[in-house]
Each structure stands twice: as structure tokens, then as C-alpha cells.
């Protein structure tokens, strides 16, 4: 499904990713762990197509198509979803209007039929109920006045409605206490399916207790230095990044 080949990315003229390669088969959950400055956020923004993240070499293949030069909305319509580390507050844009516009924009790009008002409402209500999101939250402007946990649940709601093929979770646990984290992880786990892959980007092992990965990759200095099963997270927890990275080198 996703294959990143020898990806080099410059940000503000400085090379951050230096030959990242990675394969995520359908239905699998892969984690990218790494110390600060390893290029974790750069990886997620580059996959989502943010301006300013300049791919100088390599490619990102998604279902066999190189998406490197596609606009963010084109990638989203193809099924790439980025859950933001810090979801934006956008005053003046209602959550419902945003959800509807996003769903219908993607349908339009894919050449599918747009939802009518009743279909949309049904879909939102069902997904919101599943994720314990109140009607009141849906009525508010997008993320305005939401707690950290509510913002992340709102991201999960968007994921549930947009039904991506690849969900990239960028530091899903930042700003969450343990109860909020459990709730968000529960929501994510409900969305696991054989057709959907996850790329979980995190600094801490903690998140991986709740969203258990099939494969863990360690990112350091702009490339993957080590891959392994979930036991790798425990090694990191016990010995720290420096020791594990040194051993891999």
C-alpha cells in the first residue's frame, strides 16, 4: 500500500530526511519512533503534502502511484489521512460544515456521489455516538474551546467519517492525560481493519501500549536505522534511544 523509497526532504533549505525507506502493507500498524529532531514530524507533513517540505530525491508510492507531487487534497482523496499533533482551532468554521465539506470534497475528487443532508447527518451521528462525542461539540466552531482530549477525539471522528486507507497519527498522545489517551486509542482501535493501515509516529513508548503495532521503526538522523517487532519499544524504554541507535549502527 505505502512504499517510501529513499526519501530526501529539505525544509528551509536544510536536509531533514536523508534516505528514508519504508513499506507498510495493508491492514498493518507500523510505528515510527525516534528522538527529538530525528525527522518524525517532517515525515508526517511530507506524506500529507505540506508546502515547504521539499522532496529532493526519492518517492512516495501509494497503491503503486507516486504521490510526491500531488496537492494535499488530492492525497487526502486517495486515502491518506494525517491526524495532527496539535489540531487547529478555526473560529467561524462550524464543525458540521467542515465535516460535510471535507467528505463531499473528497467524494467529488474521486468522482463519487456526494452525500445529501440526511445521509450526512446519519453518518455523523452514528460515528459521534461510537466515539462518545456530544451533539454540543459538533455544534461548536471547529475545535474552539475543546480540551486536548476532545480535539484528538474530533480527529478520530474525522478519520471515521473520511475512511482513509492510511492514517498517519502524529504524536497522538501529546497533551493527553492517561484517561484521555485510553479513550482516543480505543477510538483508533475500533477503526483498525484489514483494508486500513496506520503509521503511528511517537516519541514515547506509552502510546504503543494502547495502539499495539505490528512493526516498529526507529528513525534517527533522517533515516530508518532499525526495524523490529513491538519488543523494540521495550528495549527503547529500558535503554534509551542513544544505546539502541548505537547498537544498530
Amino acid at each position, binding site marked *: 500500500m505505502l512504499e517510501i523509497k529513499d526519501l530526501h526532504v529539505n525544509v528551509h533549505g536544510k536536509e531533514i530526511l536523508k534516505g528514508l525507506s519504508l513499506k507498510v502493507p495493508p491492514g498493518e500498524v507500523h510505528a515510527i519512533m525516534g528522538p527529538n529532531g530525528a525527522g518524525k514530524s517532517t515525515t508526517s507533513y511530507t506524506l*500529507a*503534502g*505540506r*508546502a515547504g517540505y521539499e522532496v529532493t530525491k526519492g518517492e512516495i508510492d501509494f497503491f503503486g502511484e507516486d504521490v510526491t507531487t500531488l*496537492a*494535499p*487534497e488530492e*492525497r*487526502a*482523496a486517495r486515502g491518506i*489521512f*494525517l491526524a*495532527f499533533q496539535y*489540531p*487547529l482551532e*478555526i*473560529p*467561524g*468554521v462550524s464543525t458540521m460544515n*467542515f465535516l460535510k*465539506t*471535507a*467528505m463531499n*470534497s*473528497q467524494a467529488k*475528487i474521486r468522482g463519487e456521489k456526494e452525500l445529501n443532508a440526511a445521509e450526512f447527518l446519519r453518518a455523523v451521528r452514528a460515528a459521534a455516538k461510537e466515539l462518545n462525542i456530544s451533539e454540543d461539540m459538533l455544534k461548536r*466552531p471547529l475545535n474552539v474551546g475543546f480540551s486536548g482530549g476532545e480535539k484528538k477525539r474530533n480527529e478520530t471522528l*474525522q478519520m471515521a467519517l*473520511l475512511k482513509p486507507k492510511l492514517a498517519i497519527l502524529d504524536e497522538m498522545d501529546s497533551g493527553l492525560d492517561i484517561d484521555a489517551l485510553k479513550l482516543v486509542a480505543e477510538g483508533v482501535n475500533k477503526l483498525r481493519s484489514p483494508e486500513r493501515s496506520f503509521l503511528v509516529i511517537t516519541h514515547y513508548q506509552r502510546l504503543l501500549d494502547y495502539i499495539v503495532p505490528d512493526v516498529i521503526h526507529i528513525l534517527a538522523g533522517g533515516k530508518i536505522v532499525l526495524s523490529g517487532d513491538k519488543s523494540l519499544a521495550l528495549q527503547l524504554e529500558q535503554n534509551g534511544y542513544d544505546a539502541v541507535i548505537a547498537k544498530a549502527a
Partner: protein
Amino acid sequence: MTDSLSESLLGAMEQRRGAVAPWLGALQGQATEVFKREGLPNRRVEAWRYSDLAKALRDDPVADATPVVPPSLQRAALAAFVDGALDDNASSYAQIGAVNLRTALGEKDSPLAAIIGKVYPQAGHPLVNLNTALLEEGLALRVPAGTKLDLPLHLRFLWTGAGSDGRHLRLLIQLEEGAEATIYETHDGAPTFSTVVTEFTLAKGAKLTHIRQESFLAGARQAAVTLGEIADKATYRAFYFSQGGQFARHEALLKLAGEEAHAELDGAVMVAGGRHCDNTTVIEHAAPNATSNQVFRSVLAGSARGVYQGCIKVGQVAQKTDARQLSRALLLSHKAEIVTKPELEIFADDVKCSHGATAGELDANALFFLRARGIPEAEARAMLIEAFFGEALDKIENEILREAVAKNVSFWLTTHAGEAAHVE
């Protein structure tokens, strides 16, 4: 005073003196004398430094499309003006007690006639003077004490082009104690030159909502002034929406004359191409415990120019004044420009006054967020621009009017999609 435009205006002043009501002749005569001395407002006068009316009127007119007649509102009393002339057959203003200006001014001693030329200090105001000397038509509304008008008054101005001397309108509004009214004033098309001066007085506890919506074509040249006196516990709520024109300026000159008087102004400016839009406000706090709050939001594309001049005067008696003003601008192109000039004159010591100004581009983070959810760039930009005005729109209580104004904002975004979508 030697050029042909000034001479032509002067000729018109002589001709029109006393035409609306003979007793007004003296007032018009004085105004004409001032015009002879001062001429048209121009950039050598500080208040007109960024909006040179004299120059705009001498410049070649911008060619324009044909104006579209705006739809009539459901549930509103209509005063339909075409090229400055009140069309009584198309109007329904009488049902809320409004009268033709000529009727209102018929007797010098009638209550409405008594306020003309007297609301707020206006002596020496070049535009008000010009309008007084040239005034032809208008409308007057008096709302008796305790009366709350159910229907808004829709002042619908359609400009298809007018004579070289322009069209000059006067609106008189008087709300007696505890009265409430809503005025929806729309301008469409392109006057070659028009002035509109509105004078209003709000007695104790009265509440006036004033929604001005300028949807001019590119060649419009208009200067408008709203003068108001607000007594104790009375409120003036204003929403000024403008798309600018070749020259578009609106001034709100308000006096908070009584305790706990309140003025709340929201401005929304959407200008593109080479248009010019000026919002100037002077709010005088002349009594204790009065409050004023103004937020002007501007979206500027192309090589458009926006001007916001906000002056707050706090007199010595006006203790416990709370006065705030804010100008926020979104610049969609590198050639667009916003001029913000705050002025505070404070003579009381126990007051809260604040002013602020921001100018910037659309938030790149928010834009990326929307696009990453599948919303194409142009649509994402439009969403953020609409959101920028959302807070002001939400404050419009009358649902029909709120929707009408929101539609106007969306329409601008549709018709200027190219300019809104691309940074040059």
C-alpha cells in the same frame, strides 16, 4: 475654485437652494459659502489624506458592468431609490410611518425638521456641508416612544449612473424613548458621484440597528456620513459591509451623550481589483459609563486599498468610559494595502481605552489542515475568509438580514474567486 467641476457644483448649489423646503435656504446658503472657501475634500486635509475625493472625482470614471437590481426582502418596509430619486410607487415605507424628506421638512417646526443640520457637531465638515447645499431627496423616520418596529426599513439604493453634479441624499431618523428599529441600507450599481448623510438621534433606552451594505460596481464614487447622538442607556448597533469602489467612504460620527449609552460597530470590508474603501469613525464619549466597541475586518485582494481611521474622544466628564477598537486585515496579495490610523484623545482619568491593528495573510496552518482533509485550496481559502467575518455576521439578530448579508459575502467570494485564491 476655478475648475469646471467646482463651478458646476456651485451652480447646482445656487439652483437648489431652498428647493426642498424654502426655510432651508439659509442653512444651504451658509453651506455654499463654506464650499466656496474650502472646496472639495482633498488629501491636504488631514482627515482626507488617504482618501482624496477631489482627485477621485476628477479622475476618469472606471468603466463598469450593468448594475443588477437587488432582490426585495421578505418582511421589510421598502424605500426604493433609483439614481437618488425615491420611487414612491415601488416603496412601502409608509407602513412603518416613514415619510418622504420633502414632507418631513415641509414645516420648519415639525420635530424631524428640527434635527436637520443639528445632530452632532458637523459645522465645517466638508462632505456634510456639500450634501446640505445640494440635498434633493431623502427619507425621514420617527419612531414614537416605546414603539418597537417589527419590520426593518430597507433603504434600497440602486445607482445606474447619474448627472455630473451627483445625487445627494439626506436621511433623518429619530427614535424616541425606548423605541427600537432596524435599518437595512443597501447600495448597488455605480453612482458617478453621490453623497448620503444620515442624521439620527436615540432618546433614552432606544435601540437602533443599522446595517449598511455597499455592493458597488467598480466605478462607484460615493461618500457617506452617519451622524448620531445616543442618549443614556440607548444603543446603536451597526454593521458596515463594503466592497469599495472607485471611491467609497463611510464615516460614522457618533456622540455618546448619556450615561450607559453604547455604540457597537462591526465593519466588514472586501475589496479587490483597484478599488478603494475608507471607513472613518469618530466616537465621542461625552457622559460617564458609556461604552463603545468597534471591530473592522478587511479582506484586500488585487491592488485594492483599505483605510480605517478610528478616533475616540473621551471628555473630562466621561469617567468610567470603556472604549475599544480593533482593525484586522487579511492581505491576499502583495499589492493590496491597508492604512490604519487610530487616534485617542482622552481627558478623563478613570477610563479603559484600547486600540489594536493586525495585518497578515491567511493562516497557513489552518489552510493546510483544511486541505489535508480533502478541501481544495480555493475552497479552503474561501472558508477561512468567510470564517473571518463569521463573528460579525453572527451578531446580526434578524435572521433574514443575516442571511442576506452572508449571501453577499459568499457572492463576493464566488465572483472574486480568482483573486481570493491566488497570491500575486
